């Protein structure tokens, strides 16, 4: 089970002071803020909360008082509410279907698969890919018809590995997932193992845009965001060959896609199918160099 290990810091302070405090607290290691009328809540991973950080916090607050900007501020720190909201939300949705035959089932949800259905048993944690997002479902639907014949799959920004898992279970022989987030690295490796796929795929903890691998991939999937896709696509194309299949999503449907259209054309990717679901865009391309 995943547990959250965060401390919650509560500072009594007037509302305008949030403008002054937040950016410095971020430097100290706090991850985000909930501004309230007469106080500010913020959170820090317990491993980042050291005596040095506590000293920095005190020094900063007392300097603000000395310079006359703010009155003396009182603060408290304690363990944050550990409720796993992602898990709770996802479980309430039950089994989620994607494409023709994929079903994503979180633990604790009873589901009897139909013949030919492929079950992805994924625990919703911190990494992306729980199946409750339209982009995950569209990417699974788009890769489904092309996974069986794929020799090598490359999953860029693999999150919890859901797309890589789907492709391998559908019949792709080998695969690589890349993600720069620690949670994604851990969760995707655990998911490969729990599905018995660790011999056929590996996860790289690193930059999914600028990497160099000694292989060519015939199925490439990326569910990230528009700007990283534009940045990574030239390098991804280096790792593709004629007729390789590319699936891109994570792009908002109302976002102008002229730069993507231009870049894919320039690199030789021909769009074959486009999908839009819940304001998100996904597309499948094939490499057809002139």
């Amino acid at each position: 089970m995943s547990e959250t290990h965060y401390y919650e810091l509560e500072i009594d302070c007037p509302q305008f002071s949030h403008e002054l405090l937040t950016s410095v607290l971020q430097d100290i290691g706090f991850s985000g803020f909930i501004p309230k009328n007469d106080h500010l809540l913020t959170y820090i991973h317990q491993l980042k909360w050291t005596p040095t950080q506590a000293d920095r916090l005190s020094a900063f607050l007392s300097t603000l008082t000395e310079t006359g900007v703010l009155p003396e501020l009182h603060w408290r720190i304690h363990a944050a509410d550990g409720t796993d909201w992602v898990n709770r939300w996802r479980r309430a949705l039950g089994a989620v279907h994607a494409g023709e035959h994929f079903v994503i089932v979180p633990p604790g949800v009873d589901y009897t698969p139909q013949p030919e259905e492929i079950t992805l048993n994924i625990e919703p944690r911190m990494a992306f890919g729980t199946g409750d997002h339209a982009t995950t479902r569209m990417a699974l639907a788009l890769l489904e018809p092309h996974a069986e014949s794929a020799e090598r799959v490359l999953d860029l920004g693999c999150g919890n590995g859901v797309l890589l898992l789907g492709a391998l279970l559908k019949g792709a022989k080998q695969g690589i997932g890349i993600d720069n987030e620690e949670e994604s690295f851990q969760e995707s490796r655990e998911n490969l193992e729990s599905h018995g796929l660790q011999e056929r795929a590996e996860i790289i903890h690193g930059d999914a845009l600028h990497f160099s691998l000694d292989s060519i991939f015939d199925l490439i999937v990326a569910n990230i965001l528009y700007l990283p896709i534009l940045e990574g696509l030239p390098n991804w194309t280096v790792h593709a060959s004629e007729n390789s299949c590319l699936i891109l999503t994570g792009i908002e449907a109302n976002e102008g896609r002229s730069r993507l259209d231009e870049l894919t054309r320039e690199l030789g990717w021909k769009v074959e199918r486009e999908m839009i679901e819940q304001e998100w865009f996904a597309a499948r391309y094939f490499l057809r160099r002139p």
Partner: protein
Amino acid sequence: MAKKVIDYAKLVIPGGQATPAPPVGTALGPKGVNIMEFVKAFNAKTQDQPGVLIPVELTVYADRSFTFITKTPPASYLIKRAAKLDKGSAEPHTVKVAQLTKAQVQEIAELKMVDLNAHTVEAAMRIIAGTARAMGITVES
């Protein structure tokens, strides 16, 4: 017909890098908002400002759908940007890491006057200058 609003939420989180960890999960989970949907939408909207703290205001509707708007980064971020710093000084009393011109202080003060609850630009400038000093940044006098 307009959808019925049932709740609001305010957050200040790093652009392009939001995760379901606190405070996002903590703030939105109890309201029944799909956390992953918000994270992906927020990161998409702010992907050109990675790591920059961005205030966001959510409106939650009766069907648990939501909309959100983003605002300008906090004054302390604008100070760091004007001073071309990644981080403020770890020891602001003794180690001064940069200097701001009066014009830079005024520019931030004018942009942030309303958020700082200041009635005059001069009052806002005093707050900005004091905050800069607390970050180890001196201000040209």
